[in-house]
């Protein structure tokens, strides 16, 4: 009764639905916020960077918008993944279900939100004068790899955060640093050549470059970026799996 593929599928569906609903509850505009938010962000930063600081990037608005959505997916995904176990204390202490499903479903709700943001992005890009090509069909590959990366990280973060609440604060700082470690407001060419390879080893950077390649520059992703993404996902997934498995047994006592 409580096993098998159908059970897992049903549990994941209701939990993801629940997280999705809770996220937009109590707000009048609901889901539209996740579209308005990056747009407002884009307007502000386009003003700051193209008018005040005069960054020379062609097609700055769409270039920036793609980056923002990739970054938003990562930052909100991991931030919410981190608190997913704590926010669902009763699911851990009062009923039994495989605990990783709580994290997985939370990430999935986020994936859904970001997926819709990207869906809304495409017509916007056309309005901004971008000519989309067949390469745009690779976008799901970007989103799925990013989901897996977020899931791997969330497994570690959510289970560690139960015992050490510091991870909440630490991750916030890491994300603030990360904001400047990815080519979001500036271009990769700004990084000195000596550090560039190191800089490009960041899987979030690789995802951002990948997304811009296929949506804006009409070119396939580079092998280098694909390799960085695959190894990044594999690495964080393995760490997440091991950490979670180790911590899982004591979660109910620590909550």
């Amino acid at each position, binding site marked *: *009764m409580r096993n098998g593929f159908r059970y897992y599928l049903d549990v994941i569906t209701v939990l993801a639905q*629940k997280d999705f609903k809770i996220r937009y509850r109590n707000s009048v505009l609901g889901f539209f916020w996740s579209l308005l938010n990056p747009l407002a962000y884009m307007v502000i930063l386009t003003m700051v960077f193209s008018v005040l600081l005069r960054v020379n990037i062609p097609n700055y608005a769409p270039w920036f918008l793609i980056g923002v959505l990739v970054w938003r997916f990562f930052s909100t995904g991991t931030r919410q993944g981190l608190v997913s176990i704590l926010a669902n204390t*009763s699911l851990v*202490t009062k009923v039994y279900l495989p605990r990783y499903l709580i994290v997985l479903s939370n990430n999935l709700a986020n994936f859904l939100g970001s997926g819709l943001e990207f869906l809304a992005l495409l017509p916007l890009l056309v309005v901004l004068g971008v000519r989309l090509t067949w390469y745009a069909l690779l976008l799901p590959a970007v989103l799925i790899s990013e989901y897996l990366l977020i899931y791997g990280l969330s497994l570690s973060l959510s289970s560690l955060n139960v015992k050490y609440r510091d991870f909440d604060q630490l991750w916030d700082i890491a994300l603030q640093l990360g904001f400047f470690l990815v080519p979001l407001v500036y271009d990769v060419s700004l990084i000195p050549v000596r550090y560039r390879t190191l800089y490009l080893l960041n899987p979030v950077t690789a995802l951002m470059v990948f997304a811009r390649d296929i949506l804006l520059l009409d070119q396939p992703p580079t092998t280098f970026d694909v390799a960085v993404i695959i190894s990044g996902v594999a690495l964080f997934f393995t760490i997440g799996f091991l950490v979670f498995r180790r911590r899982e047994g004591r979660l*109910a006592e620590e909550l």
Partner: protein
Amino acid sequence: MAPFISVEDVWKLFRIPHQKRPTIIEHIAGALSVLEGERYSYEEFCALRKIGFEIERGESLGIIGPNGSGKSTLLKLMAKTMKPDRGAIMTNGSVAPILELGIGFHLDLTAKENALVYGVILGLRRSEMKKRTASILDFAGLTRFQDARLKNLSSGMQVRLAFAIAIETEADIFLVDEALAVGDMEFQQKCLAKFREFKKEGKSIVFVSHNMNLVKDFCEKALYLQNGEMKVIGTSEEVTKKYVEDIQPLYKAG
């Protein structure tokens, strides 16, 4: 045939640190002070020791004992939300736990939405659950409040919803932790009637209670826990009598 539920030599230890160190910095400070001779120390608190019993199909067990004697911990182990440090618990069927207040609802979701989430977690198909929501809300007496958020419902109403969902899942084993005491008399009777029906169908109910009459009436067997150990196990008649005798001197002294 194998027993329905078997609990074999179960031990559960909790670590109680002498100094609480909930943050990393404090842990590092603690580790450093080990070098200076002040040890990172904790006490092992044995919440349960040497617990072993069996329950047959259709039988119900009442667990009694003073606060802190390990009743709820034992129920949590049976519900698998915690793992025993030693020993094993085997159940030959699906388990529906009704532990403490609510089965773990989300206060921002409506009664109906919560019913869907928990019914599915307890093993009902999503499609099945959609058909049964009406009868769950009806049993809980919450049809009028189905779209009210849970935070706006009274604690008694929340417990009623929890029971209604758990009952609808048609599990084989029900674990009930005091929760029944929160519902009103009418609802208690309704649940007990349902549980009696279930017993006839060969399901088992384990419940923790301070209501000796209830344990005596409803359960064949009872387990009296004291300080994490099995003080007496036997027919509910004998065990409740022993418990009442044990607390009798306290009344006289008062």
